[in-house]
């Protein structure tokens, strides 16, 4: 068993050396004369406007949060899945099935909740209530008059 995981370390080390080796080796082959234009950020030929490090659309963070929840549940489910067959062969199939069923049901309820809350909608247009409020706000002065 330590042998198997030692392999992972060795592979990671060799992969790093592979990249490093080719970059260092290439250093003697490639030219190196940077100019201000070459070092500029590419923005379709124009001078870049400002930095790219600014606030980003929050829907990506929502997806990331949903992902974390589901991925953790999957990580918990893999061991159950791998022993399911041996449980069936021992005659405890129903127990293992209920176990898996509870897992899947929790995940499914989570998915249904996220779906119902509208977090899976990618195009978040202005919702009807927001539009209605805006319309009412516009019509308010007219009614008052």
């Amino acid at each position, binding site marked *: 068993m330590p042998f198997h995981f030692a392999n992972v370390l060795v592979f*990671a080390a060799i992969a790093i050396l592979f990249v490093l080796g080719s970059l260092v080796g290439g250093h003697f082959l490639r030219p190196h004369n940077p100019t*201000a234009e*070459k070092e*500029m950020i590419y923005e379709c030929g124009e001078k870049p406007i400002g930095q790219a490090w600014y606030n980003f659309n929050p829907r990506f963070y929502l*997806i990331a949060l949903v*992902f974390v929840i589901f991925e953790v549940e999957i990580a918990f489910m893999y061991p159950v899945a791998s022993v399911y067959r041996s449980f069936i062969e021992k005659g405890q199939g129903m127990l293992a099935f209920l176990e898996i*069923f509870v897992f899947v049901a929790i995940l499914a309820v989570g998915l249904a909740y996220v779906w119902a809350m509208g977090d899976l909608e990618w195009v978040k247009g202005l919702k009807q209530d927001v539009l209605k409020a805006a319309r009412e706000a516009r019509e308010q002065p007219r009614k008052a008059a």
Partner: protein
Amino acid sequence: MQGFLDNLIRHFGHDPATWPWTQFVYLGGMALFAFAVINFAAITAGIFSWAERRVAARMQSRVGPNRVGPGGFLQWVADAVKLLTKEDLVPAEADKILFRAAPYFMMVGFACVFVALPFSHRLVIADMNIGIFFIIAVTALIVVGIIMSGWSSNSKWSLFGAIRSAAQIISYEIPGGIALMIPVMLAGTLSTQGIIRAQGGLPWQWFVFDNPAAFVAFVIYFISALAEGNRTPFDLPEAESELVSGYNTEYSGMRFSYFFLVEWGNMWVMSALATTMFLGGWQIPGVSAATLDAATGGTAVALELLSLAIFVGKTLFWVFVVMWLRWTLPRIRVDQMMNMCWKYLVPMSFAAVAFVAVWMLVVHAVPALGLVMRAIMFVLGVAFTVFFVYRTAQNIRDTGDKFDFTSNW
């Protein structure tokens, strides 16, 4: 591989359990194998880059690279030499440390997959007991590399591409991960070799034809793998028409080549994984795994090579399908991509897991039902394949397509 090294030590007259240099031989052997496998991956990625351009050219009725070497085969070597001699630019306003570090993360995430990925009956670096789980875990390093490269570039195109790519890869990891759970349930092990052993050489012994849910899981896995490898129709992270090149816009030369090495190498990984999990892996039709274990001498070598050829053949077929899809389907929109994942594939994969859990109980109670279902699935599969080939042949007849391999090759 440990067995091989042990035999090597015994061959020189030492006992691996007591010989003090055993650990060093192990380390040296691991390093050699790692170097060989990473070079194999790099060379396959290079050859795929040539093959993809030839396939694309064939599908679009143009010539493709045909100048360097026979049929342009050495094009990828020329490309590698060109990339090696290109100037390595780091933008002045980039986060230089992260910018330089990103390709390492990509390569480590990509190389570590090969530790648990089998090639043939005996040829696997380490038959881990958590094999498939390990593969799912280390591929996540590639996302880290993508985000690092996109953010550190300080370029808007790179940032958009990286964030999109991250959102896409992590989203599709959910259905892909759940779909891969089904072979694990059917085989009762996480080891990649164990999953292949639980299948058989003949198509109706493969997990893909085990039951309808397993077939659905295969399709879900394949779609997810396409999305995780940023392949068309899910190549939004590097949508050339809107994001220039996505997360690797600012990269050049050798550093840039690693992103594409990983992308093309991933085609091998996803196809080999599909072969392992669903399509019987290296199993030889009519030869059981026990026969393979027991074989000695010349028979063993012949069977080993045959199993290797079968595994590579199946894998290359799916690599071709991936290329085929790229030149057939248009790119989909971001919202369609997200809808497809969360509203179709995730519920379907849950349903498939629940179905397989019930099905395994049913088959345990009435074993004959399992055989009947395998037979039905296999017949349906053959019927579909025959229909597909028939329609394709008819299309070729109707449009008068000719295979012109001589003048343009």
